[in-house]
């Protein structure tokens, strides 16, 4: 089997990927594809990008040895603290990169979709920084369950548009953002929030998030004298924080890569967002990947307590990593995620995002030994989820 894990020139990872966009969007996607390598590999771009990551986003994010959590599981657990980034999650790594691209391409208006609101906040933030107009599409259900982020986006000057189609969640928000782009092709840049969408987005977003594993190499070498942990765990919605922390380890086969999907109420209950577990090959938001769908090819409505994982597709890179067996994908239920969130909060004084709590909940599902080194990506902080945490406890 073909074992390259980077996108080929048409944006395919094995059989997954591509750019299934209508003719109305072709020019936009194609002109981005034509320039993105050249722009992001230029010294000028790299200088500005890494400067902003350092002085604006607060990178590098710390690698923290979680002693009490390690004791509990009888192994050595490190936390990659993406929650400490400006705006509270890994999403800022990507939005800084894409806004620089947008500016470079002369675009004046930015649109984005958001689920948990973290990508929306990270987009609204860089738009404020660059003085660009910002419209964020967000499902109405998500606007209620992630309300603090709606207020932040509005304070940052973004227009948050409630989406009322479908399940009123992330998938529907992405549909609406694509429709906006069809209607505003000339001045508008679409900042996609995960490794999803038509080529070149999955590759682009993975590159911008790869700073996570780039730092991890150095941080682990300093802490442990080796760059390679035994396990890397990350939650998977679209899969951007996972792609970022896997990136530099993909060809290091001794490191086990583990993605964690949201099982919702359980993968066989019909209320789940575990796409790799339950999906079949199909096309969603311009990408051929695994998709949760019915027999007629209608995309089914996902469910998860975590708005950021509540998506019926998955980035094509993960479909391919799963297909080749290079990465393993587990899933955890709402309940398991909630108790993992409480556990780490009480053991380490870190309140994680509900999304990240899914990655933590998978630790107990691994057969870990005392000398294993485990790195868990804490993709975001839990401020936005206080209501769900509070309700779970009462």
């Amino acid at each position, binding site marked *: 089997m073909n074992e390259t894990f980077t996108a080929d020139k048409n944006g395919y990872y094995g059989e997954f990927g591509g750019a299934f966009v*209508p*003719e109305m969007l072709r020019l936009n996607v194609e002109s981005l594809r034509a320039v993105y390598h050249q722009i992001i590999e230029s010294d000028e771009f790299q200088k500005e990008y890494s400067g902003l990551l350092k002085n604006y986003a607060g990178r590098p994010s710390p690698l923290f040895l979680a002693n009490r959590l390690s004791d509990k599981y009888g192994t050595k657990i490190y936390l990659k603290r993406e929650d400490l980034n400006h705006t509270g999650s890994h999403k800022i790594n990507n939005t800084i990169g894409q806004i620089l691209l947008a500016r470079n391409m002369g675009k004046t208006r930015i649109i984005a979709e958001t689920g948990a609101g973290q990508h929306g906040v990270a987009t609204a933030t860089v738009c404020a920084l660059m003085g660009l107009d910002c419209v964020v599409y967000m499902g109405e259900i998500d606007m209620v369950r992630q309300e603090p982020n709606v207020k932040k986006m509005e304070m940052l000057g973004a227009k948050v548009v409630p989406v009322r189609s*479908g399940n009123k969640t992330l998938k529907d928000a992405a549909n609406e953002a*694509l429709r906006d782009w069809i209607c505003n092709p000339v001045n508008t840049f679409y900042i996609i929030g995960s490794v999803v969408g038509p080529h070149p987005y999955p590759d682009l977003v993975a590159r911008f998030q790869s700073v996570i594993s780039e730092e991890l190499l150095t941080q682990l070498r300093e802490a442990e004298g080796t760059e390679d942990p035994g396990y890397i765990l990350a939650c998977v919605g679209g899969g951007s924080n996972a792609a970022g922390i896997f990136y530099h380890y993909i060809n290091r086969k001794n490191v086990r890569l583990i993605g964690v999907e949201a099982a919702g109420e359980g993968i066989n209950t019909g209320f789940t967002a575990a796409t790799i577990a339950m999906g*079949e090959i199909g*096309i969603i938001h311009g990408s051929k990947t695994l998709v949760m769908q019915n027999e*007629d*090819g209608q*995309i089914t409505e996902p469910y998860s307590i975590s708005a950021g994982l509540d998506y019926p597709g998955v980035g094509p890179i993960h479909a391919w990593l799963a297909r080749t067996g290079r990465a393993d994908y587990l899933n955890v239920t709402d309940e398991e995620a909630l108790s993992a969130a409480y556990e780490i909060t009480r053991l380490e004084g870190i309140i994680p995002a509900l999304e990240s709590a899914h990655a933590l909940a998978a630790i107990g599902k691994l057969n870990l030994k005392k000398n294993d080194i485990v790195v868990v990506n804490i993709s975001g902080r839990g401020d936005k989820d206080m209501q769900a945490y509070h309700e779970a406890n009462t």
Partner: protein
Amino acid sequence: MNRIDKLFQSKKQNILSIYFTAGFPAFNDTLTTIQELDKAGVDMIEIGMPFSDPVADGPVIQRSNEKALSNGMTIKLLFKQLAWVRETTDLPLILMGYINPVFRFGVEKFLHKCQKTGIDGIIIPDLPVEEYRLSYELFFEKYNIYNIFLISPQTPDDRITYLDSISKGFLYMVSTAATTGAINNFNESQITYFEKVNDLSLKTPRLIGFGISNNETFVQACNFANGAIIGSSFIRALDGNGTLTENVHEFIRKIRG
């Protein structure tokens, strides 16, 4: 000969093609709608296969898709409804929808079914020409089904010429940078775009679609192409107060003026 070619050979002007969503307003309306459109004198019919996530469509067609799906429509059932359609109409028939349900059905199996049913062409907005040529063109040729390409104001001239050179049937000219939906008249930049495409002297006939809603926009579109395609505004008419038959005939009468 493919019925689409026959149509464009015998008629060069004022071609009216109507889009509606299969299984809308009621599950069993599909065949009746086709028959009434035929009697009302339209030239071609586009039968929409409903999809859960129609990203190129505006609110009206989004809702007709939702309704059709909640009525229980699927591709499989659509082919059942259309099994005897060729006993009742000789108009060119086109299936229009999104790639995922077709992909799930199996592209070759789908095209084979189309041929057996008497379908002449397919429009799948989110199947890019490049993917089509790479993976599916052979099947379309095998079953003599035309894949209709779209051009939009965003399509560069050299690409329009390229699409023209590989096109069969007709080119679907999207009138504006927008999702489907009705407007009351064309603006200056749309007219400039229509004129520009006219001046390219393409070999393939053209129909203008998206935003055509009344006699005025229909006549205007016909000035710049062989005819026009109406969707949203017809779907809205189907929701009118009359019977299905009355709604269809009244709408077509108004469009033809």
